[in-house]
């Protein structure tokens, strides 16, 4: 069983990306053996109200059992609490927020309120550090990357909030993990998509120092080819049990009470 917690459908505004339709995502999942994907609606990340893409996302996911929707929320927009309530009542894997694209303070009052509401509703909060390598971003794509300090702040603001962070590298992960209490760090999960493999061996190091239980499989597809995350795991010396928890076991624990 392999679950991708970091997948998208829909076009990207800053460059042409092939394979953004739901059918194309399914083909890519089949190509690399991904059974299930947490899916976000990519265009709405850049909309004034990203929640406007959620209805289509739910509808798309309802037609395809391998998609688990990750609806988007803008906690400065009127009625945002309904997004979290719908996610809790439905089949959503998490809700996502991309505050730097909404002009929000990533650790500000709106985000803290969102974290608290997610905690109360039992819905994980998904945050992306970035979508693309900073060196290649479109000249008009100027939103800052999500900062590590904000993850630390959000995980501290409610003892029940659970956070899934995608596209983080080694330095970011270490800063949050070792800058948090063990109890807080145990409520943060990291996808492997942006962590370097050999010869730097950042992923191998983090599995050893931060712990296998903190990492989940994620790809960032279709912005990135999903083969990269599979190759990372194939290059590690993992037991069958470790591989299983990385690819699916840890994801399932995110929702455990």
């Amino acid at each position, binding site marked *: 069983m392999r679950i991708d917690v970091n997948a998208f459908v829909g076009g990207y505004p800053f*460059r*042409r*990306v*092939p*394979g953004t339709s739901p059918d194309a995502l399914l083909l890519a999942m089949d*190509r690399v053996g991904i059974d299930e994907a947490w899916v976000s609606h990519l265009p709405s990340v850049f909309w004034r109200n990203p929640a406007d893409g959620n209805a289509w996302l739910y509808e798309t996911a309802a037609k395809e059992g391998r998609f688990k929707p990750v609806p988007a929320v803008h906690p400065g927009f009127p009625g945002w609490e309904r997004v979290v309530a719908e996610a809790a009542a439905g089949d959503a894997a998490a809700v996502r927020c991309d505050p730097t694209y909404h002009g929000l303070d990533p650790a500000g009052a709106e985000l803290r309120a969102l974290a608290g509401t997610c905690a109360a509703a039992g819905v994980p909060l998904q945050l992306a550090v970035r979508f*693309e*390598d900073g*060196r*290649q971003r479109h*000249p008009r794509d100027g939103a800052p990357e999500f900062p590590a300090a904000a993850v630390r702040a959000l995980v501290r603001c409610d003892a029940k909030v659970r956070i899934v962070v995608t596209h983080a590298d080694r330095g970011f992960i270490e800063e949050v993990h070792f800058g948090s209490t063990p109890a807080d760090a145990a409520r943060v999960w990291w996808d492997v998509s942006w962590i*370097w*493999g*050999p*010869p*730097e*061996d950042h992923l191998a190091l983090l599995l050893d120092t931060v712990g296998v239980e903190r990492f989940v499989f994620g790809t960032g*597809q*279709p*912005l*990135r*080819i999903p*083969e*990269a*995350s*599979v*190759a*990372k795991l*194939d*290059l590690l010396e993992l037991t069958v049990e470790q591989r299983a928890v990385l690819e699916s076991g840890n994801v399932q624990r995110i929702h455990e009470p």
Partner: protein
Amino acid sequence: MLIDVHAHFFHPRTPRADWRERNDSRLRAGDKMGVSIHVASVLGTWGLTSPVYFPSPADVTAGNEALLVLQREHPDSIRGYACVNPNYTTHALQEIERCLRAGLVGVKLAASRRADDPLLDPICELAGDGRVPVLHHVWQHRRRDWPGQEASDAVELCALAARHPNVQFILAHIGGGGDWEHSLGVVRDVPNVLVDLSGSGVDGGMLEACVAAVGPERLLWGSDLTMDTGWAKLRYLERLLSREDLERVKWKNAARVFPRGAFPSD
């Protein structure tokens, strides 16, 4: 056969206390991935006693010497580029001659001087005489200067390539940051520039764009600092290309542009 045209190794005179582990990790991962030959460069002392991209002549020599030692220790799996700093023309030319005589198989130019600078001409003439390729570090569509390097982009590399039509140039790490679409547009009609697929970038659509721009006969497989992304691109290409074209990208193109006898298959 799989040739990695963009590898690096460390040595004791670098800031990396873990230099041996990193070298071993590259070789171990290469074994797992099926890499037959790592064609590597060493950028001086990697910053220990002069900057990575502006290495002093002494550090250039130390780095190349370390690479020659590695090539002798691993004759079946490591080959090397002579890395030079074009600002020190006399030293650069002497170093290339020395290193090619000693068995290195190419020239590496990083970011000590823009690619279109006349200072690079005698270096390229020497590479042409020795029939070795020039691997040039490239920032894909450099829109400003970046600290620590005098990076070149594809426009500048292609200007150099036009002045030296008999030399084979390798545009480094198309996935190594910056706007690869811009670079691909520039190199499309410059036949003596090949594109190395290395770099941490694994953007959806990038490999299709590379094939469309220069065709499989001008693509070279490589890894650079992240071997996992190199393996991912190789796996993707296995589905994108015909078997014959895949073999070109994996090794046949490299065997064509490096000197005859550089690899065991020659």
